[in-house]
């Protein structure tokens, strides 16, 4: 079974027409890959469906706006993948 990162990278590549080989675990979805908030809704939809979760985008955005979190914590892909794993684990608990 492919890793969470691999699945996320494939989703991003297919959703946003970004070459798969340019997407790495260190890529920042916004700063490096140029994904804007509208495109990220499509990615969130695909991730929600693929993993059976609901990415808490509003909560994350609020935390970033309040200075309680950085965008890197949620939008660098290795971190995004870790957050997805946490949500999946919480769902299955």
């Amino acid at each position, binding site marked *: 079974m492919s890793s969470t990162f691999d699945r996320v990278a494939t989703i991003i590549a297919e959703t946003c027409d970004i070459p798969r080989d340019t997407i790495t675990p260190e890529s920042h979805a916004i700063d490096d890959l140029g994904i804007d908030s*509208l495109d990220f*809704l*499509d990615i969130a*939809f695909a991730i*929600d469906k693929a993993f059976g979760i609901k*990415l808490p985008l*509003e909560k994350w955005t609020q935390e970033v706006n309040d200075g309680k979190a950085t965008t890197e914590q949620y939008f660098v892909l290795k971190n995004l993948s870790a957050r997805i794993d946490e949500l999946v684990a919480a769902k299955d608990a």
Partner: protein
Amino acid sequence: MHLEYFHLIDRIADLRAEERSITVEAQVPLESTIFEGHFPGHPLMPGVLLIESMAQASGWLLIALTKFERMPFLAAVKEAKMRTFVTPGELLTIEAAVVHEGSGFTITDAKVSVGGKPKCNATLTFRQVPFPNDDLRGHMETMAKRIGFPQQMFAHG
């Protein structure tokens, strides 16, 4: 329909919150300045207005599901298909259903039919945010009462 005011929904025929779906009706007017230009001698309901009518039907559904706490704004239109012409005087039945509820956004499938025959359909994405001001919320509540929005789906308190 009052096309010039973008009031495209006349009546909520059925709102099924548990199924996350809605059916509304909209009467295309016989006359409108829009038809003078679209098109001279061959009046047609513009496709963009049909998409907007599907967006408004979806929007009322989403307002109901959030109990008037959030305003949906159209963010994306996908797979929009204008199958046959819609002409002045036709009574549209517009159906919409939630496909996915995300965090701060929702995706719906919507379709327009006339007399049971499909006219157009689209997949629509909405961002949902708190009402930006009381004026808009008040306006939407007035509109809701006018089109038969179920009373029990207004927020309490």
